[in-house]
């Protein structure tokens, strides 16, 4: 009885990890192992960078009660358009980037104001933004594509021909820098886990099943090493990976270690109780959307850098990819539940499904249909577990 309870909760917690493993195995077989080629792993990261960045912000909105931001795709396009036009008129990369981030933040604050203090439903406030900023992107770009050839900008944000971190240590076909960085990351990860464990043990905190924790740590360490090896044997670290890692680390930290992070969960779990606990719940909503705008600005930068141009069609459907990544990654559609690690898994899962089907030569239309089914299935799991409890 007890044993069964543990297994069920283990399954529940790791449902999407298991799904991810199954999907990887499936595509390894159906593509004859091609999906695991270094080049494909590299592409996976570069192509889906925006999903990781946007989903980190979207998670905060969803945590506050299943609220979403539909405007992010248009904001990505709009900030990208502003940056593209600025750089084409000779503004420096630094100023352009600052303006793009500030414009994103300002848009987020604008929408957050209506949502938090005027109680406009988020769906509607951001639907308005979705139309408005798509239109304004066209206005900024005059309806045309604008090329970007600012070297500094492309180098820093991973665009153009040199979208990889150069190999400072070696010069052969195997990228030594990449491998060394991977090893340092692995060592840091294991060391931090160990230090945390020792500290908690000293304070006499019950840490649950130690062998399970170490098994998890080892698997993740091995995974980091393997990915760095794969990347090293192609061209090295894609520049965009640095930005993804930075965003995920920062937001992972915010959601699990800071008071404001805790408040997102609290508001989504029970807004009234949170307000009566002396927390300014309106400010929490505002921060969620302001932050989403900021990250949309960053995603805009990454998007135009990757394409070396700004176009009025960029960012279409990005909002849905971010939302889907969150829900597939286990965020509750009712709010209050969800993790950054879940977002990583959700975004990776979608990326792999896309890429696997592309390699298999399945048309983009079917790919969308499959994405839809995966999303429905993931949310179904959430709803069914909720029901079971009630």
């Amino acid at each position, binding site marked *: 009885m007890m044993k069964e309870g543990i297994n069920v909760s283990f399954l529940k917690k790791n449902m999407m990890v298991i799904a991810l493993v199954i999907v990887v195995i499936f595509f390894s077989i159906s593509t004859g192992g091609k999906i695991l080629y270094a080049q494909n792993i590299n592409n996976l990261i570069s192509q889906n960078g925006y999903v990781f960045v946007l989903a980190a912000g979207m998670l905060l909105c969803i945590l506050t009660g299943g609220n979403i931001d539909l405007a992010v795709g248009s904001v990505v396009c709009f900030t990208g358009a502003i940056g593209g036009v600025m750089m084409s008129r000779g503004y420096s990369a630094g100023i352009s980037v600052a303006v793009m981030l500030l414009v994103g933040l300002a848009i987020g604050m604008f929408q957050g104001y209506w949502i938090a203090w005027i109680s406009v439903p988020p769906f509607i406030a951001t639907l308005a933004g979705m139309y408005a900023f798509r239109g304004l992107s066209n206005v900024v770009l005059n309806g045309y594509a604008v090329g970007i050839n600012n070297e500094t900008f492309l180098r820093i944000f991973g665009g153009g021909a040199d979208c990889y971190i150069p190999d400072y240590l070696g010069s052969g076909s195997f990228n030594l820098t990449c491998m060394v960085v991977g090893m340092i990351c692995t060592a840091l990860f294991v060391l931090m886990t160990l230090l945390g464990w020792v*500290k*908690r043990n000293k*304070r006499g*905190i*019950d840490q649950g099943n130690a062998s399970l924790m170490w098994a998890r740590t080892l698997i993740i360490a091995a995974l980091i090493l393997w990915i760095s090896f794969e990347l090293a044997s192609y061209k090295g670290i894609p520049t965009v990976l640095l930005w993804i890692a930075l965003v995920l680390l920062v937001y992972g930290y915010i959601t*699990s*270690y*800071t*008071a*404001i992070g*805790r408040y997102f*969960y*609290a508001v989504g*779990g*029970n807004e*009234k*109780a*949170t*307000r*009566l*606990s*002396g*927390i*300014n719940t309106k400010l929490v909503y505002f921060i969620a959307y302001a932050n989403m705008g900021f990250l949309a600005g960053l995603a805009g930068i990454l998007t135009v850098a990757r394409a070396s141009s700004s176009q009025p069609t960029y960012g279409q459907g990005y909002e849905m990819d971010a939302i889907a990544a969150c829900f597939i990654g286990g965020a*509750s559609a009712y709010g*209050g*539940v969800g993790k950054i690690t879940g977002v990583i898994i959700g975004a990776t899962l979608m990326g792999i499904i896309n890429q696997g089907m592309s390699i298999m030569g399945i048309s983009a239309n079917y790919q969308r249909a499959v994405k839809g089914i995966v999303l429905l299935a993931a949310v179904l799991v959430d709803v069914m577990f909720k029901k079971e*409890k009630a």
Partner: protein
Amino acid sequence: MAKILLEMKNITKEFPGVKALDNVNLQVEEGEIHALVGENGAGKSTLMNVLSGIYPHGTYTGDIVYDGKVCNFHTIKDSEAKGIVIIHQELALVPEMSIGENMYLGNERGFKARIDWDTTYSEADRYLKMVGLTESSKVLVKEIGTGKQQLVEIAKALAKKARLLILDEPTSSLNEEDSRALLDLMLGFKKQGMTMIIITHKLNEVSYVADKITVVRDGSTIETIDNANHDIDEDRIIRGMVGREITNRFPKREGVKVGDINMEVEHWTVHHPLYPERVVVNDASLYVRKGEVVGIYGLMGAGRTELAMSIFGQSYGLLTQGTLKIDGKDVRLKKSPMDAIRHKIAYVTEDRKGNGLILSQSIKVNTSLANLNALSTASVIDKDKEYQVSEEYRGKLKIKTPSVEQLVGNLSGGNQQKVLLAKWMFAEPDILILDEPTRGIDVGAKYEIYCIINDLAAAGKSVIVISSELPEVLGMSDRIYIMNASRIVGEMKASEATQENIMAQILRSGRGD
């Protein structure tokens, strides 16, 4: 003897961990008005929910015999088809719809695919006349007052061809005049042969309209009193309602050292947030000393929760007037609980699931929520310390669970209540307002919570306990305020208070003398 229309035999209904009804028997004759009286939580509403099919057949044991036949109701529709219609205490009307639309909601005239609005409104108007309303049925419900809304509910019941009408506290939100009109309307229906069951706390109304009175206590029917001449002594009913032995259900309050006045509220008036013309708390004044446990007794709807929440950073109501003094100094709290917490006030809600806890989060997260600042530096939470603190409270309050990582939603009511208390104790308040701290939890857990309250007072905190359970107020408090119909109608020392004189005070105030 008249024909028995309804007989409920040996009804037993259990909720997880609680026996809400224990072998209840009820007989209602055709054409009579039968009153059900008892304290909150005695089981009156549960019994009516069994009767109307809200708790479907199979979730309780026992038989319902109606009109000579055994009935197994699975939904409200089943019981309504037989003419049993219940009018709940909370009005179930949609404000933005017209009276007519409301009356036939779920019971539409014409066809499902095409509602016959002419019939709807002409029939609605006919029933409205029967209850003495002159409004057109096309008027929106939000445009008429509460008293008239209650009449619309009755017209709605009549439209369902009611034979047995159940009214659950129909006058709780009505003023004197509207209440009297409603009761007279009931007497009129009786003349036309309708059978009615009325649940009410207002005993003067009981003696005015009821032919028979059944007393419910602790999930059992105690007695049925005849009131054919409408002259029953109210004390006689009260004795039936509260007549239980009290032995050792409360820890002794010994060696109480009461200090200076900690918090004082004067001439406190609060209006309803949506209907600002309604006064919810009327000119209330009270104080609490350090180390003192003050009870506020009142029935549901008396304005107790509203009083407490309005003190707690105006988290309820509008246009609050009055002064709040803490340690003798005037304090003007901003309209936010944050400010109240800063002034060391804690409000432990009566609605732990709705307003108190985050069920989807762990005990740990819930415990720290109201005082995260104490656990964090520069907004970064020390999670190990958080764990240790919540472990400490888990031990101190005897929260029965393997770990503080357990989700609060999986705990029993008593343990949830303890987590809620832990949360507010960790906020380190000087003044604790506990609103129905033992609602819906078993006797053992109640005793433990009483002990915690005593410890808090012994540590010099000021504790206000709001309760609608008389024995609890009598057993726990040093001093008692009595609240009725949005006013504080009395104050007495616990040593002088008895169940009878508290009830008498409420009744006297209700009669308006």
